């Protein structure tokens, strides 16, 4: 152990990513801040358009500019601001120190290239492996992620693997250089539940073995519950709530989080009307004044549609973006 466990691996401060279009400026990520400790798993939950994917693409500077623009903020990884790095420094960082896996493995894998070659490229570039070393490493990585007969299958093309196996190949590639930070963007959304369980278990195991920190982006609160230490809930480009996982599920301090939790069917509960959040997710180019969730919020008051809510600290590690955060939090505590 070179570093004490409490050290922050990543510090994101006031990140703002805007997209400029004919219809106006879309503030996809608008003032997002969070820390990630070494070895910790952070879940980022949100619906489509909440900014969760854009925020994480920005961490690796993968936002197309234009139309996107990282307007402000800092992303400090081990003391260095990723947003200030040169192109070659960035190249050195991506794949080596931080890596990403996606919902669709084919966005990361080249369909025309053998898996062996794609895996070898990574370590030849970043670790200076010779061809033989890289090949041996590629086989080892495939074995590591649970691909049977790795020696025989390493020369296959991506389409020769099933969906779950392809996901494993991508994970093998992402972890080839033992990155300190793994960003997983909806890694199991396209998979069957049985395969999802396998992949989540794999990510957990690899994380424990390598000590990497993980950012897990998902819309599934169940996945977050089982995998993460901390959770961020995003809505309309803003962090609506941030808390340790157990605390967030037990005592949500934000009406949006509470609504999300209640709208998931509970198998232990008897049937009946399912709780539903009314309305539609907002159009980011035409956000209402005040709280962006106010039009859908069951406890919105007059102030909510007029003034932007404060980011209220509820406990040392629990924050909520709401005019009535303390009240909502107190309600959650009395209910549970």
């Amino acid at each position: 152990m070179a570093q004490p466990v409490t050290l922050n691996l990543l510090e994101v401060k006031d990140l703002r990513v805007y997209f400029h279009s004919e219809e106006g400026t879309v503030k996809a990520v608008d003032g997002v801040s969070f820390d990630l400790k070494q070895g910790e798993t952070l879940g980022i939950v949100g619906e489509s358009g909440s900014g969760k994917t854009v925020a994480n693409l920005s961490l690796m500077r993968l936002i197309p500019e234009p139309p996107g623009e990282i307007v402000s903020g800092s992303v400090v990884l081990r003391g260095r601001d990723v947003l200030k790095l040169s192109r070659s420094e960035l190249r050195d960082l991506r794949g080596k120190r931080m890596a990403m896996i996606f919902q669709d493995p084919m966005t990361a894998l080249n369909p025309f290239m053998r898996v062996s070659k794609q895996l070898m490229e990574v370590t030849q570039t970043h670790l200076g492996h010779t061809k033989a070393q890289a090949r041996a490493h590629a086989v080892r990585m495939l074995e590591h992620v649970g691909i049977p007969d790795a020696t025989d299958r390493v020369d296959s093309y991506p389409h020769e693997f099933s969906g779950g196996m392809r996901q494993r190949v991508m994970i093998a590639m992402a972890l080839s250089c033992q990155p300190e930070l793994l960003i997983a963007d909806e890694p199991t959304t396209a998979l069957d539940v049985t395969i999802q369980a396998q992949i989540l278990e794999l990510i957990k195991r690899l994380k424990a073995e390598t000590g990497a920190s993980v950012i897990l982006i998902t819309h599934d609160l169940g996945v977050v519950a089982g995998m993460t230490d901390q959770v961020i809930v995003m809505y309309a480009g803003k962090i609506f709530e941030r808390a340790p996982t157990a605390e967030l599920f037990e005592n949500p301090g934000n009406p949006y989080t509470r609504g999300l939790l209640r709208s998931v069917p509970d198998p232990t509960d008897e049937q009946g009307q399912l709780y539903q959040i009314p309305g539609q997710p907002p159009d980011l180019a035409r956000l209402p004044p005040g709280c962006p969730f106010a039009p859908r919020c069951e406890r919105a008051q007059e102030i909510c549609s007029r003034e932007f809510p404060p980011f209220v600290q509820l406990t040392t590690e629990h924050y909520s973006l709401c005019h009535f955060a303390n009240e909502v939090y107190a309600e959650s505590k009395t209910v549970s």
Partner: protein
Amino acid sequence: MNDPEPTLISINDLKVHFPVDARRLFRRSRQVVKAVDGLSLDIRQGETMGLVGESGCGKTTLGRAILRLTEPTSGEIIFRGRDLAHLSNSEMRLQRRHLQVIFQDPYASLNPRMTVSQIIGEPLETFRLATGNAKKQRVQELMEMVGLNPRFLKRYPHEFSGGQRQRIGIARALAVDPEFIVADEPISALDVSIQAQIMNLLDRLRREKNLTYLFISHDLRAVRHVSDRLAVMYLGKIVELGESRAIYANPLMPYTKALISAVPVPDPKIESTRRRIMLEGDVPSPINPPRGCRFHTRCPFAIQACREVEPQLVEIKPNHFAACIRISPEEPDIEQVAPGFAPGLRSHAAADLA
């Protein structure tokens, strides 16, 4: 107990096979994907029948075959005393008024060049149910019914969000006053907060219009919530069938146990303590399904006999059926059955003799 509702659709020994050409070196062999392979199922009037299984198990093909959107290879689909599987195309077209479908992808299933009014009004014209002002009125009525503002009559699909588009698809299906709707993954493409809205909408419409649903989904949480009974499919066959509450509380088949235990629960306390039954590997190819029990290649409880005997759907508990030779009505809990024993074998042997 009330008597069960009368059967609306009765599926008997339905097979849907797709020929595929497999090219090997110098040799072309004709192979067959057995997407649905000898499946029987009764769907009762007014119920929501849930249908779950992993991708490739044939659940979508079954839904499409009932509506003849995919041609069945053999078997019967009895609806109102007529066998849908053997109707001519023109006869089938008339039946479609009573049988409708809601698709998964609200982006792909609506014609982008048609206005909402045209999309919902089209089936009214096709079946000559309404024209002119009556049609316009009916379209507005349908839009209100599914929670769309009738002011948006002239808008195009791209102007709506995913959830609203799914509402358009539901309004289109309801336009002809159908009795039966196949809902094929109707909420999978939607955001969490919108999924609850659509589930509630479908449930309300069912009660108001006495509809019958086949609700196909890979999301067991959602299926458990909306359906009265549940059918679990694996490689073209039904392996467990019963009331969804009973199946969720006490799954009989190892496959169903694994499926349910794989669903993540939004509660960190439960997640950290519960035991998961992990399935090894993927679903085998439906071109050459495993002999005997099709699940034996992944089943943690498989014994030699499972590789040889093809299990039948047996009523293990009242109204709760499972296809597994390692359990029987006397010994319904597979984890309590002695290692190597197959108490269900006797009833299978008897069935073979009969």
